[in-house]
């Protein structure tokens, strides 16, 4: 089972790099959905006998339903309403984004052993994957122009935080887990509504243009 978990973590990182590189929104959303599915799989794989199986199933099922099905469906609806298919040339070009993402992955995997962790390590790839995913999410939020991609970046960031949370599944009560996921759902829902309204009002989701709204 160890090698499947390895493959799952590696695939999460590869999907991060893919989202950094792709300019087609549909492909990026599907990648993030697949990442969410992988995260639910990881929650199941990392469960050891000491954990409450019902709790684990709840977390995995919740992640699958929300991250892999519901939110991507909402995003696809959003981009269909706004009839956009592609990202514009981002502030940091695709090749530099990929290089920065790669550097982040290398640094995360090389130096994460030195981090002091409060709990015993469940899997050596867990912390580096989480760090790399958080880094990718932040990079997307910072460097992309379209609000849709920035929301995707936020989702990737949340995925990274979720991976960190897997470290603590034995200790974290179910309510807080559910609260986190609900928080996420609410944020995306609100973002979806806001994006739709902005687009309807201004016929554009270009955040550069939106900055001209300030006084």
């Amino acid at each position: 089972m160890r090698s499947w978990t390895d493959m799952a973590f590696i695939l999460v990182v590869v999907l991060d790099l893919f989202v950094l590189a792709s300019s087609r929104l549909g492909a990026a959303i599907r990648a993030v959905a697949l990442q969410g599915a992988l995260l639910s799989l990881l929650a199941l794989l990392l469960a050891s006998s000491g954990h409450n199986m019902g709790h684990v199933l709840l977390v995995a099922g919740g992640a699958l339903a929300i991250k892999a099905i519901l939110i991507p469906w909402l995003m696809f609806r959003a981009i269909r309403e706004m009839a956009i298919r592609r990202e514009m040339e981002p502030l940091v070009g695709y090749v530099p984004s990929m290089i920065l993402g790669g550097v982040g992955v290398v640094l995360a995997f090389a130096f994460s052993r030195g981090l002091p962790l409060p709990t015993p390590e469940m899997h050596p790839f867990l912390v580096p994957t989480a760090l790399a995913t958080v880094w990718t999410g932040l990079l997307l939020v910072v460097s992309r122009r379209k609000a849709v991609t920035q929301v995707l970046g936020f989702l990737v960031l949340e995925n990274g935080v979720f991976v960190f949370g897997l470290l603590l599944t034995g200790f974290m009560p179910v309510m807080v887990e559910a609260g986190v996921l609900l928080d996420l759902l609410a944020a995306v829902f609100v973002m979806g509504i806001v994006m739709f309204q902005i687009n309807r009002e201004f016929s554009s989701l270009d955040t550069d243009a939106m900055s001209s709204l300030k006084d």
Partner: protein
Amino acid sequence: MILRALFQIGILLLLPPLLLGVVTRVKAIVAGRRGPPLLQGYYDLARLLRKGSVYSRTTTWVFRAGPVVGLAAVATAGTMLPAAGQPAIFSFAGDFVLFAYLLALARFATALAALDTGSAFEGMGAAREVSFASMAEPALFLCLVVLARATGSLSLSGMLGPGLATAWSGAAPALLLSAIALFVVALAENSRIPVDDPGTHLELTMIHEVMVLDHSGPDLAFILYGASIKFFLFGALLVRLVLDPRVQGIWGAEAAFVGGLVGFAVLVGLVESFMARLRLTRVPQMLVGASVLSVFALVLLLR
């Protein structure tokens, strides 16, 4: 022993045009046509060797030397690649560096021959070829370093030899990632779709084809033959990387190798049939992506 060395040389010299024939046939079948015969590559080479050549008045000895040096360099590189189930004819620590740099020498010679014609088309092809190669070289070296780390050997015969089975059981994800990156590099270096379209006749969309536009007759035969050997070399690298650990037996290894190569050619043909050529500005992204994948694979092994 001598028999095996002869077998290796034989495969290196005789098999490559067949592989390109397989690729063309697969593309034709997927497109609904029958396609040319599998041995068409050999017929083309024989026909070209009988023809005369036309040399532009602008060219010098560099133009005539390009195909010769290119073919010689690629063939010399082939002596370091282990074919079938045994070590290569020449193998020593660090031979993969010489392997990659011999391919670079072939590219340099062809690019200079292209610039010798003084034509804008060849210049454009040469510019694109050397630029994309500079992005593919780090990826190629990274994949080979991943192999070196996984198997603990610094020569191609050791990397692709018996140590690979234990490497696959211990470092499978890293090797898988580097195999994918190596496949992308193989597509780029051999001018296949999605990097270049070997079948188009529009000079503005070509890379390798337009670089050799002015060569004719036996020169063109040398160039086509050299290109097929280069395709064979990359295919052999990938086949040995992926297939070798699973096959035992004396002649079973050779049969598996040839079968694997045909499978590689079929895979390339399918990729060419189902993908479109990338816009030229997207090719650097693809190659940098391959490099980043292989760096990731290396980090997995180094930590």
